[in-house]
């Protein structure tokens, strides 16, 4: 049992017995060795379910949306990206700060469970870090009530746009072929939307066929409309937690589109990291008189 998991359990026991929180949300071991999935415990005895390993990448902040109605506090464990996701929900007025007790854990970077699924458990060490974790700039939670362990040095200071630039280098037709192939695979299961902390609408225009934006037909064009629109909706708000790519059953590189928007926003309107400072309005939520001008 590694020390962090031990301390997680102690804190959970302490919070639950003291009654400060009505529930604690953490991770428990899933069916396979590369799966650590969310669990909610409401009594101190269940605390030993909580674990901490290098597959705890599901983002717990969005579960708070299910508990915004009950009175008590809910404790959740937050890595760097989860904390940014929490700020995202806070900035979108979807949760109240005092209804959540955040236990921050500096994150060493989570492994890519899709690569892990292809190998045996014995080859655990050969599994690479998830793509977003390799160039993670905020491993230490930016907001927490309590911190376990000590801060870790970020693995990068500048975002890594190499994959975006690789695609930009292609000709328009090559890029179009690339995205056609990717969006043909999409089965519109909306896992990317449901896992994304920036997608917190009450009912989404895509699950409401009366909205008129999109028909229920599943073909490459409608899938592409969905993909581009979702990327545009989270532009300037995406906290780069990489959950959309993690949960996609068809392995579509969704983060490529989000990172393209982030790169453009940085170039055009100045470097901006979502979910860090909740007071500054999001890039598309305000404007400057001297924004770059290309449309004269």
């Amino acid at each position, binding site marked *: 049992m590694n020390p962090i998991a031990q301390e997680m359990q102690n804190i959970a026991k302490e919070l639950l017995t003291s009654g400060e929180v009505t529930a604690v949300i953490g991770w428990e071991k899933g069916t396979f060795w590369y799966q650590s999935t969310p669990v909610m415990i409401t009594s101190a005895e269940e605390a030993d379910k909580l674990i901490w390993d290098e597959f705890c990448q599901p983002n717990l902040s969005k579960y708070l949306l299910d508990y915004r109605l009950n009175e008590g506090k809910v404790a959740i464990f937050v890595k760097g990206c989860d904390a940014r996701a929490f700020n995202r929900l806070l900035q979108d007025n979807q949760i109240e700060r005092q209804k959540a007790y955040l236990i921050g854990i500096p994150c060493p970077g989570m492994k890519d469970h899709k690569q892990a699924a292809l190998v045996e458990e014995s080859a655990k060490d050969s599994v690479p870090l998830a793509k977003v974790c390799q160039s993670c700039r905020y491993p230490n939670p930016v907001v927490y009530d309590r911190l376990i362990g000590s801060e870790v040095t970020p693995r990068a200071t500048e975002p890594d746009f190499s994959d975006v630039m690789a695609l930009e280098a292609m000709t328009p037709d090559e890029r179009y072929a690339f995205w056609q192939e990717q969006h043909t695979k999409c089965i519109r299961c909306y896992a990317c939307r449901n896992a994304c902390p920036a997608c917190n609408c009450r009912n989404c225009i895509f699950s409401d066929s009366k909205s008129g934006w999109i028909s229920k037909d599943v073909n490459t064009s409608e899938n592409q409309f969905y993909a581009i629109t979702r990327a545009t909706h989270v532009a300037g708000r995406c906290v780069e937690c990489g959950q959309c790519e993690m949960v996609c*059953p068809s392995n579509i590189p969704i983060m490529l589109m989000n990172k393209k928007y982030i790169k453009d926003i940085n170039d055009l309107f100045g470097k901006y990291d979502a979910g860090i400072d909740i007071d500054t309005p999001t890039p598309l939520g305000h404007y400057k008189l001297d924004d770059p001008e290309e449309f004269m």
Partner: protein
Amino acid sequence: MIVIDKNKLTDLLDALNQSYQVIVPAKSADLTQFMPYDAVKEKNAEIILNENTVLSPKWLFLPQSEGMYAFWAKNKKLEIVDLPSDLEKMRIVFPVRHCDVQGIACLDKVFLDERHVDGQYLEKREKTVVMALMCNNPKDSCFCASMGVDRAHANNTVADVQVYDLGSEYAFEALSDKGQQAVEAIKALGSEKTVAVPEVKEQKIKVNIEGLPEKLSGMFYDSIWDSFMFKCIGCGTCAFICPTCYCFDINNKIRGEEGVKLRTWDSCMFDEYMLMAGGHNPRPGKKERVRNRFLHKLEYFYENYQMMLCTGCGRCLRKCPMNVDIVKFINQANAK
């Protein structure tokens, strides 16, 4: 039984491809699914024989989005137009693992029910030869044995040809006349031999479904659901990759005066699934939806068709983003 050497696989597929449209499980653009053999050759994708695909072969019979008929207004009068079927040649699917064959059997129960036979589904079933492969290298997520799937002999209401993997050779045994024609086409590649059914390796996951439906029928208000419902994020992954989920939604796609009536997959995990006029939703929360999914798979379907609606293919175990695990549920339900 016709026995054909494994290294003749491509010749076998080419042979079949003359008269049939061959469909094989393959991996392209980092996704494993059943694809036409021509597309596989064109993209030189890798054919997947040792595990089941992420997307089940369900789409061959119940496409994710299928036009039922077209309609248009000819000077203010409605005109219905049948859609041309896009199945010119007979299709042959090789290899289909027993869990997917069982899945198709479940779909047959629903779409070929004698009270109402679904024309489009029937046409696709009749025009497809299913070659079931007895797989003896199960993945660690497979538990079809525990779900009552015969590891040795595929469900013969669906499988037209039973194929056995003898290590370096395949043995083909025709089970239906459609199957017989298919075996005829490849007879030349191998020789006639009688072969014993190879025995099968143990599966890691075992689960006891004895008397489960009856037990579950009394557990609607049980507290087991609270712990299970929490993790689900309400996406449609499990429903869309599951070989047996058959729920669909009917809607229109209209362009001015003309349009197409569409049948598209739907998932009971979506909140709009049960949304009724006036805004009422009998299954508003995740708890009701997860409960409905498990009960439909393990109880309701059994009460109607004496067959589990879960064939133990293990896809939802692997692909559910939050690992809502049906096996864990069954074990906890049995323990209650």
